[in-house]
C-alpha cells in the first residue's frame, strides 16, 4: 500500500525488538467484546487510478459555477484567483507544516500570519486582527461572546440584515450561556432602526455591511448610540472585497469587525473550508479569541515572530479560556494573504470598483425587464431583486437551462412568506456581458 512504508520484514523485526510475537499482543488492553476479528464492511484498498475515476465521476455530477452563467452570493463569492496563489499554497513547507508552536522552525508560517493580521487590520480599519477562525459565522458568534465578556453584560441585538446562517450560529453558540440574543426581523429594505432597542443590558449590536440584502448603511449614528449606552458595535463583512470600495468599518466606529475572507484566494468549495476574520481594538486584545502572532527578537537580536498572548487560549487557560478554538484556517489565510499581496492596495480598490461596476450594469439591465424590480438604493456587488412570482421555482427552472440565477431569499428565510418573490443576485469581476445577457434573457423567458 503506497502510503505504508513498513514491509513484512520490518514488522517482524520490530515485533522482535518489542518482544511480542504478534501485533495482536499490542492490542491486549482492548476488551475482548470490542476486538474486531474481521475487516469492517467497507471496500478494500484502491490505487490512485480507481480512486480518481470514482471521485471524478462524482465530481462530474456537479455543475461547476464557472462553467455556466453564475450569480450566486449570499456569503460565498466566485472571484478570480490568480494562478500564483494555488501554486504557492501547495508548497510542501506551507501545505504540510504544523501549527507554529516551535517558532524557530516555523518562521515561514509566522511571518505570513503577521502579514495576514496586518492586512486584515488595515482593510477593516482596526488596531489588531487574529490569525483567523473557522469562518465568518463562528467569528460572529465569538465576537458576541467577547463583547459580553468585555462589557460584563449578556444581551445581544442581531440586525435583520445579518446573514441568517450567522445569526443561527450565534444563537447556537450562545444558547447555553445565559445570554439574551434578539434577532430582528429580516431587513428587506435596509431601513431598520436598531438604536431604540439598545438597553442597559445590551453588550453589543451586530450589523452586516453590506447587509445580507445588499444595502449599505452609514453605521456612524448606530455606533454613537451603542457607545452612548456602553455597548459595542460589531460589524460583519461577508464579502470582504466590499472593503475595497467602502469606508472601513473601524473608521465608522466599529468595536469588533468580523468577516468571511473566502473571496480572496479561496475557491467556493461547496461551502468550506472558509476563512473567519476577526479584528478588534488594542484595549480589548486580551479578550480576543483565536491565535495571535507577534513580533519579537531572538537572542542574537534577529527579528522573528511567535504565537503570543497564549494565556487567553484553551491549551493554557482551559475552562477559563476566551474560546475553545484550537485550529485556525491557516492555509486559507495564506491564500488570502498571497492574493492580497498580489493585488496591493491599488489593485484591491480596482477589483472592488470592477465588481461594483458590473453589478450596476446588471441592475440596469434587470430593471428593464417588466415586473422585475431592484429593491436596493445602495449595493456593492450583490442586490435584491423582486420578481412577480416565487423566486425558488424560477431559479430551479433556470438551473435546468444551465443558468445559476442567484439565491432565492426563501432558501435563507424558509417559512417567511414575504420573501418568496425575492432573489439575491451577485456579480463579480468574473461576470462577462454574455452571462448578464443570458440571465436577462432567461428571466424574461421564465417570467409570466
Amino acid at each position, binding site marked *: 500500500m503506497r502510503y*505504508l512504508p513498513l514491509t513484512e520484514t520490518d514488522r517482524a523485526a520490530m515485533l522482535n*525488538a518489542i518482544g511480542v510475537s504478534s501485533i495482536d499482543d499490542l492490542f491486549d*488492553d482492548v476488551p475482548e467484546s470490542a*476486538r474486531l476479528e474481521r475487516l469492517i464492511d*467497507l471496500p478494500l484498498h484502491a490505487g490512485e487510478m480507481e480512486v480518481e475515476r470514482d*471521485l*471524478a465521476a*462524482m*465530481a*462530474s455530477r*456537479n*455543475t461547476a459555477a464557472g462553467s455556466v452563467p453564475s450569480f450566486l452570493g449570499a456569503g*460565498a463569492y466566485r472571484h478570480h484567483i490568480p494562478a500564483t496563489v*494555488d501554486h*504557492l*499554497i501547495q*508548497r510542501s*513547507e506551507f501545505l*504540510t507544516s*504544523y501549527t507554529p508552536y*516551535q517558532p524557530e522552525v516555523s*518562521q*515561514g508560517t509566522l511571518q505570513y500570519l*503577521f502579514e495576514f493580521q*496586518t492586512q486584515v487590520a*488595515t*482593510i477593516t480599519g482596526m488596531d489588531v486582527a487574529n*490569525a483567523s477562525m*473557522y469562518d465568518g459565522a*463562528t467569528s460572529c458568534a465569538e465576537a458576541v461572546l467577547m463583547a459580553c465578556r468585555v462589557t460584563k453584560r449578556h444581551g445581544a441585538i442581531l440586525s435583520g440584515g445579518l446573514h441568517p446562517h450567522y445569526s443561527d450560529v450565534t444563537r447556537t*453558540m450562545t444558547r*447555553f450561556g445565559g445570554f439574551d440574543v434578539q434577532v430582528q426581523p429580516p431587513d428587506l429594505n435596509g431601513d431598520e432602526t436598531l438604536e431604540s432597542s439598545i438597553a442597559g443590558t445590551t453588550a453589543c449590536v451586530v450589523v452586516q455591511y453590506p447587509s445580507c440584502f445588499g444595502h449599505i448603511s452609514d453605521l456612524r449614528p448606530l455606533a454613537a448610540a451603542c457607545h452612548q449606552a456602553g455597548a459595542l458595535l460589531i460589524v460583519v463583512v461577508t464579502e470582504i472585497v466590499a472593503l*475595497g470600495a*467602502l469606508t472601513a468599518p473601524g473608521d465608522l466606529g466599529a468595536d469588533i469587525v468580523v468577516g468571511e475572507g473566502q473571496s480572496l484566494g479561496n475557491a*467556493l*468549495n461547496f461551502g*468550506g*473550508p472558509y476563512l473567519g476574520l476577526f479584528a478588534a481594538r488594542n*484595549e480589548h486584545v486580551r479578550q480576543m479569541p483565536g491565535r495571535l502572532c*507577534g513580533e*519579537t527578537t531572538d537572542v542574537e537580536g534577529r527579528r522573528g515572530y511567535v504565537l*503570543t498572548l497564549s494565556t487567553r487560549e484553551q491549551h493554557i487557560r*482551559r*475552562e477559563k479560556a476566551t474560546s*475553545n478554538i*484550537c485550529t485556525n484556517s*491557516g492555509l486559507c489565510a495564506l491564500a488570502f494573504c498571497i492574493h492580497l499581496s*498580489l493585488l*496591493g492596495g491599488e*489593485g484591491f480598490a*480596482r477589483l472592488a470598483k*470592477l465588481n461594483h*461596476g458590473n*453589478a*450596476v450594469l446588471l*441592475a440596469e439591465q434587470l430593471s428593464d425587464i417588466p415586473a422585475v424590480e431592484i429593491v436596493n438604493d445602495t*449595493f456593492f456587488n450583490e442586490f435584491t431583486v423582486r420578481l412577480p412570482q416565487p423566486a425558488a421555482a424560477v431559479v430551479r427552472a433556470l*438551473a435546468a437551462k444551465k443558468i*445559476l440565477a442567484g439565491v432565492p431569499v426563501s*432558501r435563507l428565510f424558509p417559512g417567511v412568506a414575504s420573501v418568496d418573490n425575492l432573489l439575491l443576485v451577485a456579480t463579480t469581476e468574473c461576470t462577462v456581458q454574455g452571462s448578464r445577457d443570458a440571465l436577462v434573457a432567461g428571466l424574461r423567458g421564465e417570467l409570466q
Partner: protein
Amino acid sequence: MTGRGDTATGNRGLNLIEPLIFEQGQPGRSGVDLPDAPTVKDRLGACKRSEPIDLPGLAEPQVIRHFVRISRNNYSIDANMYPLGSCTMKHNPRLNEKIARLPGFADVHPLQPVETVQGALELIDMLARWIKALTGMPAVAMSPGAGAHGELCGIMAVRAALEDRGDPRKRVLVPDSAHGTNPATAALCNYAVDSVPSDARGRIDLAALKNKLDTDVAAIMLTNPNTCGLFETDILEIADAVHAVGGFFYCDGANFNALVGRVRPGDLGIDTMHMNLHKTFSTPHGGGGPGAGPVVFSEALAPYAPVPRVVHGDEGFELVEEDAGKAFGRMKAFHGQMGMFVRAMAYMKSHGADGLRQVAEDSVLAANYLLAELEDILPPSYPGPCMHEVLFDDNVLNDSGVTTLDLAKAMIDEGYHPMTIYFPLIVHGAMLTEPTETESKESLDQFVATMRALVERAKAGDIQSFHDAPRFAPTRRLDETGAARQPILRWGGGYAKDAAE
C-alpha cells in the same frame, strides 16, 4: 550562526533573509491585471471609500519570491518526521489535493440548487457512511469545522438532550490529562468542570471517577486511547457507570489512529465522538488549519444533531437546512468543510477497510518500537505496551541541568521538530511522541539514534550546547516574554497594550 555577521547580505547560501511585504511595496505596482471598471454612476451611498488602502504594491515575481523565501523557514512533514504526540502528523497524499481541485468539487457554490450538486451531496453522504461504519455509530454530524468545534457539537447535543428531559445537570467530568479544549468546551456549555485524577497506571482513576458520578453529572469527556497513549482498560465499566446515572459518554477522537479498523468506539459504549479529519484521515495541517471535525452520535443523541444534514429524498440527495425537530442549532455557515471531506474520502478509498486496519496496526507498532528501542536510556512514564503514542518525562534529565525544553530545542539542531512537550500535565516535563504509520523503519531508527545521542549528551553534562540550542535553525530562541509584555501584532501599529496608557 545563521545570518548576521557572516556575509555582506546576512544571507547564508540558500537561506535568504526576507523582509515583510510592507517593507517592499511601491505605488503603481500590482501583481494582478484587471480589466477597466465600466463607467457607471455608483450606488455605494454615503460610505464610499475616500482614502486609499495602505497595502503594498508588488509584481508577481516579487510575490512569488517573497513566499518561496519564507517557506524555506518552515519544517514540514514532507521534509521529515514530526514525532508530535496527539497530532497524528502522517503523510498528506497528493492525490487528495488533485481530487479536491477538480472543478466539480472546488468550483461549486454551497447554495446552488440541489439538483446541480448531487455529486457533492453524494460525497458527503459517502463519507458519513464510512465514518459511521468505522466507528460503529448510527448517526453523524458533518458540519463542525475542526476538532474543538466537534467537541462543542457533541457536548451541545448532550445538553440539548438533557434539557429536553428537563434535567440539564451541572457538571462534566474530565480527566486531569485531558486536552485543554475539553474543559474549555464544557465551560462554553455552562458546565462546571470536575477534574478526575489519573492513577499510577496512567489511566483515569476508576474509583475516583465512580465517587464523582452522581445525577448532577451531564457527561464524561474521555480520550481513548488517552493522552498518555494508553488504552483506558476500564472503559466498558466507565460507560456503564456513566449511563447508570443517566449521563452521557463523550469520547475525544483525536487518537483514533490507534483504533481505526480494529476497534469501533461504538462497541465501547460511547454516545458521541468527534473525528479529526486532519489527524486520522490525512488532510493537511496547512500550518495550523483548516481542519474538519465530524461528530458521531448514538441513537439517543441523534435527534439533537445540528443542521444541515444530507438525506436521501425521493429525487436524490437533499439538504435539510432547517429543522423543525430537536436539532440544537447550526454550527457553521453552509454545510461543512467540503474541501477536507473530499481529501479524507480520497484517503479512505485509497486505504480501504484493509488499509485502514493496517494503519492502526502500523501506528501502534511504530510507537512500541520507539518505546522498546529507547527504554534503557529513556524509560517511558508508564510501563508498556503503549498504543500509537508513547509518553516520556524528564526524570532521566534530573540533575543534568537540561530541561525538556532544552532537549526539544536540541532536537531542532538535529533536524527534527520536537515531540509534544509539557502535555499531558500529569507528568513532569512531558514528552509525548507519536511517529505514525507513514514513517519507514529507517526513519524510526534514525529518530531513535538521535534521541539516544541527545539523552547521552545531556547525562554527560554537555549543558551549554543544550542551553544554546537551537543554533542552526533560521532563528535562535525567541523572546516570548517580550512578545507577551509588549505585543506587536501588526506592522506599523505600535504595541497592542490594553487598558488606559
